[in-house]
């Protein structure tokens, strides 16, 4: 009988996920700052400055948080301990950091050496991560819908990275494949709708009912939607031009079904107190449904006064910043205080005085701080939408958008540093000296 998932002894030390979470906001700040130097980045999705911004945000911020989070939840959802986490995680984190910086530098300077180094570093990150996490996912046996989503997300990540590295190799004249814009489309589609959405789906099936005392998602939906989404995405990658749009409609239907059902489950929650994690979820899911509508309108050929290239950017920004980053910011407001509480509780179990002065979750990230995070994030997303909807003023709006976005990630960094400080100050001396 495998009951490893019941024990908190299997979870990695607090510094492992927190190490990822503390580095991630720096990349958000860096991404925002990069736009200040290249205010015309939003003219086309192929603009090198925009590619820099997108990869700093998706790899540096989003992937950093996702990898840290996945390493944390894996022992719980796979119902088994994941050995050597504490030793492997710093390498993954270090390589991802450096790889991301070299990749961004490569796009800005069009420097082959930087692209080459990025390929090696990022390749190493994902070989390490997928080898490590993949072994746990494969060995976990039959699991619930969350495990299914994590497995499909990991496969999507593998495909995303492989396509990304193959595309990158064309900058180095390695000629592993021909450079095709379709490969970039597939890379983006698998990264956003495969890896990011499937991971968020899987996590939400567990955390929305758990954190907000909401009913479970309908069982049929938690297996049919992720499986259909994944199959449609992979089929789209290999399909011909006739089939491609129909497969994208199938993807759209899955995205819509998930978004609508998650909003419904949230509306049925028993806990109705003001909770900024709930608001972040509602904002993210609202964005997701709006984007489904926007895609439907644009693909039907209806003229709404937005050019195709701006529509692509609108969908990309809406999904990345409006959905993925919103979910992450909301989840961090809840997961970080809970992890700190859990780890402190375990550390203080033999120290009565320390146990009596344990901080509660709202001491670690107070509601007022989450409220400001929410406001700053809404302002960031609205400003970027305005940048794309009012192209005549884009040059001016983007400066404001970048500054607000930098403040948004700066605020997150501040919150996480304060929370980490509370953790260190409340850790009993005996544990501290053992750790050092």
């Amino acid at each position, binding site marked *: *009988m495998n*009951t490893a*998932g*019941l*024990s*908190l002894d299997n979870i990695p030390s607090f510094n492992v996920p927190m190490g990822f979470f503390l580095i991630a906001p720096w990349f958000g700040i860096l991404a925002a700052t990069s736009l200040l130097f290249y205010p015309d980045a939003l003219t086309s999705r192929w603009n090198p400055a925009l590619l820099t911004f997108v990869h700093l945000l998706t790899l540096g911020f989003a992937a950093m948080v996702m990898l840290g989070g996945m390493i944390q939840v894996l022992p719980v959802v796979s*119902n088994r301990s994941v050995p050597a986490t504490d030793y492997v995680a710093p390498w993954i984190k270090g390589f991802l950091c450096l790889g991301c910086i070299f990749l961004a530098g490569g796009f800005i300077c069009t420097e082959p050496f930087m692209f080459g180094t990025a390929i090696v570093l990022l390749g190493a990150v994902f070989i390490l991560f997928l080898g490590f996490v993949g072994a746990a996912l494969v060995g976990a046996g039959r699991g*619930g819908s969350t495990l299914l989503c994590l497995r499909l997300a990991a496969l999507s990540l593998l495909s995303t990275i492989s396509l990304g590295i193959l595309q990158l190799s064309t900058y180095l004249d390695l000629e592993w494949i021909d450079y095709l814009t379709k490969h970039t489309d597939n890379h983006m589609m698998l990264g956003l709708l495969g890896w990011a959405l499937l991971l968020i789906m899987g996590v939400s099936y*567990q955390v929305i*009912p*758990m*954190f907000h*005392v909401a009913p479970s998602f309908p069982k049929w939906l938690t297996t049919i939607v992720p499986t259909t989404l994944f199959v449609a995405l992979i089929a789209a990658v290999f399909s011909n031009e006739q089939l491609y749009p129909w497969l994208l409609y199938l993807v759209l239907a899955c995205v819509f079904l998930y978004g609508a059902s998650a909003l419904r489950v949230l509306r049925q929650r*028993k*806990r*109705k*107190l003001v909770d900024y994690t709930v608001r972040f979820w509602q904002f993210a899911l609202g964005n997701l449904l709006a984007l489904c509508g926007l895609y439907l309108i644009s693909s039907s050929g209806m003229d709404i006064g937005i050019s195709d290239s701006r529509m692509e950017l609108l969908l990309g920004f809406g999904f990345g910043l409006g959905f993925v980053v919103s979910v992450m910011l909301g989840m961090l407001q*809840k997961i970080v205080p*809970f992890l700190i*509480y859990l780890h402190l*509780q375990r550390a203080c179990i033999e120290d009565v005085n320390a*146990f009596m002065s344990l901080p*509660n*979750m*709202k*001491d670690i990230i107070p509601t007022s701080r989450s409220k400001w995070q929410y406001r700053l994030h809404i302002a960031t997303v609205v400003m970027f939408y305005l940048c794309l909807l009012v192209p005549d003023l884009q040059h001016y709006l983007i400066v404001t958008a970048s500054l607000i976005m930098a403040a948004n990630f700066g605020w997150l960094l501040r919150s996480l540093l304060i929370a980490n400080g509370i953790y260190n100050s409340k850790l009993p001396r005996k544990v501290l000296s053992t750790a050092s």
Partner: protein
Amino acid sequence: MTSIAEYMTTQHRCCDDSFVAAESAVSDKNWDEARSQWQTFCNDLESHLQNEEQQLFPAFEQITGNSAGPTAVMRMEHEQMRAMVSDMNDALEQQNGETYLGLSETLMILMQQHNMKEEQILYPMTDRVIADSAGLIEGLTDL
């Protein structure tokens, strides 16, 4: 026929109801309602924990011959919850809404992740190993 998993899961949901109602009343500074709901929650929670510790876990341990496994982890988490309930009692006595809500946020997540582990892993296991589940349920205290 009701399974152990269904019966015990219903008790979890029942505890959720009074817990959420107490929390909501504290948030509205409706102290009388908060005390009444909190009392219901405390009674229901204690009955549920007793059902597990006195009846369900011993039956499971006797059949599997393992008292240091999953049930030991669950018993330890019960003690953590009881410690938090005691702190929340103090906060409610002092009508300290801020402390109460901070603690309730923590207890709620502690409780939910504990419930999830029981509902997804432990209860299905007890249903598999305990042959006379109807007889066992008969001996449990209803909420």
